[in-house]
């Protein structure tokens, strides 16, 4: 079973207690009423859906009930770290990223299509 570290409970808990809640760090526009339909669509529906390192919201639904954020690899499903909601996107070290890489070239789905340099540009 996958263990997820809850930053509020300060403990590794089984995945059963958690619920994924989509991409993290999406800023809600302050001028919502003035947005064009296209811009609203971009904010509301369009997500990066990256293959590789992703930043996600999670909720410890059957635990403390809190939302928090996590940095995770979307192919290997391994978590790099979790942090409290409201905290800044953490800077990931090369070592942390390498630790969660999927096995190299085992199946096409596992082949990384990103590089660390590309990730750093964001």
């Amino acid at each position, binding site marked *: *079973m996958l263990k997820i570290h809850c930053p*509020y*409970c300060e*403990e590794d*808990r*089984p995945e059963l207690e958690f619920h994924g809640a989509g991409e993290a760090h999406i800023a809600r526009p302050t001028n919502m009423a003035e947005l064009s339909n296209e811009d609203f669509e971009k904010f509301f529906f369009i997500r990066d859906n990256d293959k590789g390192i992703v930043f996600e919201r999670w909720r410890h639904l059957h*635990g*403390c*009930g*809190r939302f928090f954020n996590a940095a995770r690899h979307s192919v290997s499903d391994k978590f790099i770290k979790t942090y409290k909601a409201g905290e800044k996107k953490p800077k990931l070290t090369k070592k942390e990223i390498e630790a969660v890489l999927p096995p190299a070239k085992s199946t096409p789905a596992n082949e990384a299509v990103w590089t660390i340099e590309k990730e750093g540009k964001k």
Partner: protein
Amino acid sequence: MANALRIQPLEDRVYGNNGVILQPLEACERISLRAEDKAIAGLGKAIGLALPKKPGTSSEKNGIIAMWIGPDEWFVTAPEGTGLEAKIDKVKTGLYSAVSINHRNTGLTISGKNAVNALNSGCPRDLSLTVFPVGACSRTMIAKAEVILYRTDEQEFRVECWRSFSDYVWKYLMDAARSA
């Protein structure tokens, strides 16, 4: 005047087999307490014990138990007749919400030398004494039902669940006990 008789959902049940004993809890008072930092001290005074601030811990005094559930959430329970609601009502400092969940929740105790094994059949938490010592508490899952788990003794746990789930939880643990 006619009085409504309150029947506990697990009333009259008892089960014991293979080193596991299941017993329904007696009726008691239960409060779901949410509070901001400013209100914590006052609430503690009103209830008669300090609300635990460390994740997964609880405090107990005179039969009143306060369990840490989340960063601003506690599950407070006391014997019937304590008057928790009235006590909390007097607190005027800070924002808080105290909801009586007495009629929504029910509880059971599971004890015996195989209690941990029976629980672990549906709950993947590490229930060893080092990680989950006596007095530890947490909201978690038993199979498909959300529960609050509270360790009252080395081989005894209190399981709080919604009353509509209680039949499921009871039967699940019964089944688990058979193969514990």
